[in-house]
Structures are given as structure tokens and as C-alpha cells.
């Protein structure tokens, strides 16, 4: 629709017309704010836990496990220098505690959602796929936090009564 609108603006005499073709879906998925009646509260990005531990590919598992114990989390996301998600450390890997690199034990390419995802849709997916949480990344893959099913359910209960 925006290409047609941009063409129409040109036909109306505008000299420098830009077409943001990726639109508000792209804006929201980058974690940028939107305004309107469908408030931020209805989106996944408003309910994430951002204190989830992260680690690097080349770290050793026992050291990361020690960090996890201190944090109280039982999962950890493997990120690169730009915080792009490369993998996830699951409970089995963490329990094993072998002296190996993270790269050897991580689960690569975990499913992620965008901060702009509608909470109701995410929760439905979590229920259908029996997921207890989902990592949230921006559209360029950067880790922003974790949405837990419990948090999503509580948030939906709050604003849907």
C-alpha cells in the first residue's frame, strides 16, 4: 500500500518522497516504541525478563554453569558480540557440566519472537507447542530478553479481566 501512497504523494507535487516499505511491522519488531490505543502492554516486549544470562560460543561450560547457579536461572542464551542469538543452553547441557565449549553443547537456532508480537498470539503458540518461555529478539536477531508463559498469562489476565 505504501508504494501507491508514495506515488500519489509525488503526483500531488511532493519533491522528495520516501517509502518506508517495511512499515510499522519493522519498526515494532526492532523494539522501537509505537503510539496508539493498542498499548505497549499488549505486546511481548513489555513483559520480557531482561536479566537472563548470556554467554559466548568459546566459553567453557563449567564456568558458565557457575554463573548460572549464581543467577538462579536454568537457561542461558549464546550470543555474539552484537548480542545476536546463536543458540541456547538447555537444562540437559547445564546438568551435564562437561568440560567442553559452549559451542559443543548448545542448541543452535532457537525459535524467537519479536518485541512487537501480540501477547495473545504468543501465548496461544506457547500453549499449542507446550513452551514455558520464548526468547525475544529484535528483527536483526539481537537478544532483548525472555518472555515466560507465566508472565504472559498474568499480563493478559490483568488487561482482559
Amino acid at each position: 500500500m505504501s508504494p501507491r501512497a508514495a506515488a500519489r504523494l509525488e503526483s500531488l507535487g511532493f519533491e522528495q518522497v520516501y517509502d518506508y516499505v517495511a512499515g510499522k511491522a519493522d519498526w515494532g519488531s526492532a523494539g522501537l516504541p509505537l503510539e496508539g490505543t493498542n498499548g505497549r502492554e499488549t505486546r511481548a516486549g513489555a513483559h520480557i525478563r531482561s536479566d537472563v544470562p548470556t554467554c559466548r560460543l568459546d566459553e567453557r561450560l563449567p564456568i558458565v554453569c557457575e554463573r548460572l547457579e549464581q543467577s538462579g536461572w536454568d537457561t542461558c542464551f549464546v550470543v555474539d558480540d552484537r548480542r545476536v542469538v546463536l543458540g541456547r543452553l538447555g537444562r540437559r547441557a547445564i546438568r551435564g557440566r562437561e568440560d567442553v565449549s559452549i559451542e559443543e553443547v548448545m542448541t543452535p537456532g532457537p525459535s524467537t519472537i519479536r518485541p512487537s508480537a501480540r501477547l495473545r498470539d504468543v501465548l496461544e503458540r506457547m500453549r499449542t507447542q507446550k513452551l514455558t518461555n520464548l526468547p525475544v529478539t529484535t528483527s536483526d536477531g539481537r537478544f532483548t530478553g525472555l518472555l515466560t508463559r507465566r508472565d504472559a498469562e498474568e499480563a493478559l489476565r490483568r488487561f482482559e479481566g
Partner: protein
Amino acid sequence: MPTPADRELVQQLITEGAPLVEVLPRAEYEDEHLPGAISIPLRELDRERVRQLERSRPIIAYCYDYQ
């Protein structure tokens, strides 16, 4: 011919004062829109609706996504 803009360029144009025009139906604009955007649904886009906008300055049109 309109210039395709990615998010970074849009952010730069906004800081330079370019108006943002959401061309989706008004209900979708009210639901959510980019900060500072104005609503001119495509079906209402005519001379009268853009009368107050400067023709010589950059202007950005957007909708939901690539549809």
C-alpha cells in the same frame, strides 16, 4: 520516483523533521502508529488532505509492511 527507505534512513529523516504519513485505514492508525505520525488513509489522499504539508521537504509514507 519515490525513494525506498529502511529504518535507519527513516529515523534520520525524522530527526531532520520529515513528516511521517501512515496511509492505513484510520482504525489501524488509532490502534498503533509510529511516534508523531499523521494519519492520511490512502483512500483520502488528495490535494485537500496534504494542503498544509510543504511540498519541497522530504516526506515519508508507510503502512504495515510489504503488502
